[in-house]
């Protein structure tokens, strides 16, 4: 019925011959309303495919969690709930600004739209920054999917597990001695430090990006012919700053748990087991399939992160078009559609957060 209404244009057929000068209306549509409704249905159906795409991952999660609850109970303690919650709020806020941006677009307030979009982009970047910290930390504790996983239970011994396994008692002792010396050698470069180092490489790169894109932005800003390039540089700048912010604040948060200069004991702890786990009073024995949890974790958050990156690209594209003044009160479909996509990404995180971080 709706569709019939929007396509009823034949009585104006003659006047339509001249309407095609409007560059915002594609040639095969009769009206902006039709164009908008078409796009809206299109994006909803795309979201349907996204839901089913993720349903595969959720299915994988559901099967393994219901078959091996102990794995999830055990392994989820290695995830930092506070960081996860903070990230959730950041993402929710980005959803707010996106929805607000859609509203601005509908009302034709392009300045407001620009502000909202940039904020959304920044929030997305912060989310990724925090995520990259979490990934780095997991990687350093060898809490990785598949073969790369190493049990945190005998973390420091793990490096020599192969040796200790099949040997005579004497050989095993020897190996342990060797291990102790290895331990001593690397004592000054604890995992705690290594995490920071990896991140500091990342932040160095990010600083480079920030400086370069900042310069580009500054140079191009005033040039009306280079509007597009300037805006792209601006988007990169915002993304890099956002990521930097996210990474720094999570490092800061992580260090809060330790003294200004970590004591030897703390370094030891940080090195052998993840901080969250170290605090645990009663240790749950490690189940056999503990690594499956990290497969789930990395697959789900990884695919989600890819969607975030896709969303950031789409938002940057919107920013460029906004700067060019493409959107008006009757042509704002693109903003609405990217907004819908962004909300869906948010929606998936809303489920991922309790499913992965909050298992008790």
């Amino acid at each position, binding site marked *: 019925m709706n569709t019939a209404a929007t396509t009823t244009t034949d009585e104006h057929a003659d006047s339509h011959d001249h309407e095609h000068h409007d560059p915002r209306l594609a*040639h095969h549509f009769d009206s902006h309303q039709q164009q908008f409704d*078409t796009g809206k249905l299109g994006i909803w159906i795309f979201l349907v*495919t996204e839901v*089913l*795409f993720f349903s595969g991952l959720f299915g994988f999660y559901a099967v393994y969690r219901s078959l091996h609850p102990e794995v999830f109970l055990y392994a989820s303690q290695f995830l930092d709930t506070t960081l996860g919650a903070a990230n959730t709020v950041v993402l929710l806020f980005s959803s707010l600004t996106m929805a607000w941006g859609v509203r601005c677009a509908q009302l034709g307030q392009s300045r407001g739209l620009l502000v909202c979009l940039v904020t959304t982009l920044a929030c997305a970047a912060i989310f990724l920054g925090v995520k990259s910290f979490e990934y780095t930390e997991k990687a350093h504790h060898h809490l990785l999917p598949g073969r790369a996983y190493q049990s945190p239970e005998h973390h420091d011994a793990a490096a020599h597990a192969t040796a200790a396994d099949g040997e005579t008692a004497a050989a095993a002792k020897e190996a342990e001695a060797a291990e102790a010396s290895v331990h001593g050698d690397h004592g000054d470069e604890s995992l705690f430090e290594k995490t920071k180092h990896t991140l500091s490489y990342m932040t160095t790169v990010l600083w480079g990006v920030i400086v370069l894109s900042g310069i580009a932005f500054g140079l191009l800003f005033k040039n009306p012919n280079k509007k597009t390039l300037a805006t792209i540089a601006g988007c990169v700048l915002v993304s890099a700053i956002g990521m930097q912010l996210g990474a720094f604040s999570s490092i800061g948060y992580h260090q809060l748990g330790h003294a200004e200069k970590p004591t030897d004991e703390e370094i030891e702890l940080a090195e052998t087991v993840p901080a969250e786990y170290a605090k645990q009073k009663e240790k749950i024995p490690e189940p*056999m399939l503990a690594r*499956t949890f990290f*497969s789930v974790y990395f697959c789900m958050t990884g695919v989600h992160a890819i969607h975030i990156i896709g969303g950031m690209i789409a938002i940057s594209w919107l920013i460029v078009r906004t700067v060019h003044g493409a959107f008006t009160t009757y042509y704002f479909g693109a903003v609405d559609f990217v907004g819908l996509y962004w909300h869906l990404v948010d929606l998936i995180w809303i489920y991922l957060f309790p499913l992965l971080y909050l298992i008790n």
Partner: protein
Amino acid sequence: MATVVDSSNPKSDFPIQYRELNYLNCTKGWKSWFFTLDHKRIGIMYLIGVTVAFFLGGLFAVLLRTELLSPEKMFLSADGYNQMFTLHGAIMTFLVIIPGVPAAIGNIILPVMLGAKDVAFPRMNLGSFYLWMAGAAFFLAALALGGLDTGWTFYTPYSVTTGTAVRTALLGVFILGFSSIFTGLNFIVTIHTMRPPGMTWFKMPLFLWALYATALIQVLATPVLGITGLLLIVEKTFEIGIFDPRLGGDPVLFQHFFWFYSHPAVYVMILPAMGVISEVIAVHSRKHIFGYRFIAYSSIAIAVFGFLVWGHHMFVSGQSKVVAVVFSAITFSVSIPSAIKVFNWLTTMYKGSIRFTTAMCYALAFLFIFSIGGLTGLFLATLATDIHLHDTYFVVAHFHYVMMGSSLVGLFAAVHHWWPKMTGKMFNEFWGRIACLGVFLGFNLTFFPQFLLGTRGMPRRYYTYLPEFQNLHVMSTCGAYLLGLSSALMAATLIYSVYRGKLAPANPWGGASLEWQCSSPPPHNNFDHPPLAGDPYVMESVVYNEEIGGYVPVECQGANKGSVTASGDNEA
């Protein structure tokens, strides 16, 4: 020859027969094709791509059948044979049948049938074609990088452990999946929002219903294939232990994931063909289709039920008994809508005036083949018999009767039915019918013996076999040769017509749906004005006109009744 009526003169008596400018010649150069947003050109490119893939897949099939002439090794190595049947299956399903009718024929015909200027998202449409190309490229790359020997089903843990190019092929499948999703999305939105005035849901041609149902499946099922492929790639690369039992994974879970897409995909293959048959039988019998609503609803019913039955591929897989019983019960529900369709088609022919054009011959062949294909499905839905028949040549024969016999014969019917519309040329009916006869006989000779092979104990995917099966295998191989030759003859007939064929009138068969109202081939924008749509199956609304050699709307026959332009709207 018929009078050529100039499109600039709307007062002329007859609809425009031959336009100077049509979508094929309005612009020139390779760029005008490769960057075109015109749905018809994209459809033509799809058709060419699908044809090439079909002959490649067919070549593999002929080689496979030749190898099976003897119960011992002939000329292929065991690994070569395994790779060949895998690629035959993968190419035929992902590159030929799934995009065949919807993406190739559907792209060309759907908007014209709807009286629309284009599909809703022309750029996405072009994108989906390029994704198809990329997917095909990945398949070829897999072929070059050491082949693929998992069977098109990629069952774990075999696919995880084999050393062949599984990842490349899976990426191809992933990409092709998105191509399919975009096509489906486009069709759903187009059908919802771009119907012309007067075309309510129940005045839509049944082909559109079928495409709509197909698109629903494509959109709902294909993403799961995407994530399955992705997870399998990740599994193979990082050994994350989802599907690999050595690491605590569950190989049966993979089968669930895989068939959740791949069973509905069977309906992606057959539903559009059913839509084609509804059109062809009605038009060439000159009869209103019988039981329109039942056919339309049954398309949707097949699409919906098609989702609920994937487990019947897994009756012997170690799936639990409860689930097997549930799936067996639901599986039978799919057979009902198919039965309804067949009976409705038959009744449509009743008291008609049946013309044995090539397209109609294919449609009749479809009825015959699909009856066998559909009915043999009952054996496989029944738990007790499926235990014996699962993974045998009976299954091979069954799904070839449905997927090759029905879907591809449906595609052939569609190509012949709309060929004049697509190319503006008439093909040689005599050779067309000969090819059709060859396809029909060759097909049955190839696959009927395989039912017997299956029940007698011949497992599928066997490279050598017990000598008692040789006679039937030889019959089958002879049929395959005949089938291959006939398909080549069909292609030759059609291609010949492009260069030497007679010019086609706008409505050579007397169809009443909108696509026959614009000239052959259609102009770039299909319709200058949105046409008024009526009942697409009132064949009396067009009558044969000697002078033109085709059908014209009734109003045009008598003089001075007001003229009708090509786009079909009445100008006072």
